[in-house]
């Protein structure tokens, strides 16, 4: 129907062909859809759709290969950076990315994440951090904030027994193998534009063979935070951003 309403001369923006037409399974208000779209637009703008191989995680974005119209592999939980390593090592000329959540990347896949970054694998890691296990129904993640309630920390995260929320992005930025490390958000138009610029730089850097690029996107989870989308974005700004401040953490030295 929308096709009929929009005349070609009025069309200023349309869905990129790097996303399929499949209806996404993400909950209303979730940041994954926007993050997918920004990454897909970057792949489109760089003209690398047929040279890109992605790796989907286990978590909410387990079905990412339904939505990205690029070749993709579905990895075991946490193993995406190892799978991506296998791909990149046999296809060094291709653009390889992983798309992972916080449980996948920062809990069960910590070793694979750190070592892929330490080897400086020339891949892009997109890390969507919403501080909770979404797909399994709201359990505590390594990134769950102190005092934050989840189904496995029903009285709030107690750092004495459960550890402090893990700033994995700051941690991997210490590694000589990483080239560009940044933390972004996609809840407001200005943030979306910044996040897209970061993703584009990170993808472009891949052809320089200078090391791993790592883009964290701090996001929301209205369903498991048990908030409306608007409330969740406000809560994210007030609680997530102070602990996970937005901005570049490691930028290439310009010469």
């Amino acid at each position: 129907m929308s096709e009929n309403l929009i005349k070609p001369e009025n069309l200023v923006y349309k869905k990129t062909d790097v996303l399929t037409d499949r209806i996404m399974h993400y909950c209303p208000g979730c940041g994954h859809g926007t993050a997918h779209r920004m990454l897909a637009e970057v792949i489109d703008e760089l003209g690398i759709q047929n040279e890109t191989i992605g790796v989907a995680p286990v978590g909410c974005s387990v079905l990412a290969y339904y939505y990205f119209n690029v070749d993709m592999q579905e990895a075991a939980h946490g193993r995406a950076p190892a799978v991506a390593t296998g791909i990149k090592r046999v296809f060094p000329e291709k653009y390889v990315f992983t798309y992972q959540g916080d449980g996948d990347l920062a809990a069960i896949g910590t070793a694979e994440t750190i070592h892929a970054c330490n080897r400086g694998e020339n891949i892009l890691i997109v890390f969507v951090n919403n501080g909770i296990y979404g797909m399994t129904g709201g359990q505590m993640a390594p990134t769950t904030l102190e005092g934050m309630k989840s189904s496995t920390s029903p009285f709030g995260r107690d750092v004495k027994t459960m550890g402090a929320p893990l700033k994995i992005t700051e941690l991997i930025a210490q590694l000589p193998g990483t080239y560009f490390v940044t933390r972004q958000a996609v809840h407001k138009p200005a943030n979306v534009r910044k996040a897209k610029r970061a993703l584009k730089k990170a993808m472009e850097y891949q052809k320089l063979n200078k090391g791993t690029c790592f883009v964290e996107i701090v996001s929301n989870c209205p369903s498991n935070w048990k908030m409306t989308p608007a409330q969740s974005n406000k809560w994210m700004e007030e609680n997530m951003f102070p602990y996970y401040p937005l901005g570049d953490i490691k930028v290439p030295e310009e010469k």
Partner: protein
Amino acid sequence: MKELRLMKGNEALAEAAIRAGADAYFGYPITPQSEVIEYLMANRPEDRTGMVVLQAESEIAAINMIYGAAGCGKKAITSSSSPGISLKQEGLSYIAGAELPCVVVNVVRGGPGLGTIQPSQSDYFQSVKGGGHGDYKLIVLAPNSVQEIVDFTKLAFELAFKYRNPVMIQSDGIIGQMMEKVELYEQMQRTENDYDWATTGRKEGKSATFVTSLQLQAEEQEKVNLKLQAKYREIEKNEVLFEQHLCDDAEYLLTAFGSCARITRKAMEMAREKGIKVGLLRPQTLYPFPVEAFNKIAPQLKGILCVEMNAGQMVEDVKLAVNGKTKVEHFGRFGGMIPSPDEILNALEQKIIGG
């Protein structure tokens, strides 16, 4: 030109992988198989053929790197020993589920747990019956010499790609560590094929390819399982390998696989010298198991002794194969201990002939 060399089993395996045209090796050190990655690193296959060799941070990472490379349609191989192979089971299940080809070598040592570093065959169940989660099968090859390690490396890649299935070469601490004369084959091509199931970059005008083992609907997962089972029946029909020695007039049968079969063969010769009519059946494929061969020979036998370096694993498949037609007993040494031919002959006399 064919080439003769004196080589350690583990080193021969590494050389065979290069010559079989492997595209990638990912592995992690563990005794008694570390010579595989050491040989590869020292021999610079990257310069020889362009083959990638990478030491992973763990066996878990290594098998997932294999998944990635195999998903690109490349010939990928990894090796480890028992505790490390346990760590690879998750990845193997995913590889089997996603129907990717790869070769995994287990240079078996004694267990359970950290166990010993001495040779054993106690991972038979793990290799043959599954190991990881879900209904799947590995094709399992059991070499008994350095030569068979080399020959089976080539065969393993052929079977892996023929069936898009992981293939395991079940070596052990004896075959991995001993030196023997070996004839090497000429250098073969690395993968040039662009398989339609592999992620090699989307083809213009076509939809993208994805590699996955996930089905959210039970109906769809059952279809996947039925497809896998049909494939396994094909493998059982086509790929059984075994060797028989002096079976024509045999009244008794010894059966063993891998290094243990060589010791058992000596026991057979000693028994023959004593006038005991005994033969040897050596499965070279543990899956598919030579069911028909056992079934066929069973009626002429007074009994079978299954000799293994474990507490009794293959013996269960022998019993299933003969289905009560003849008596089947097990003799084993384990925990890294190796049976002597005398012990085996004694067990044959005690458990089968006199029993």
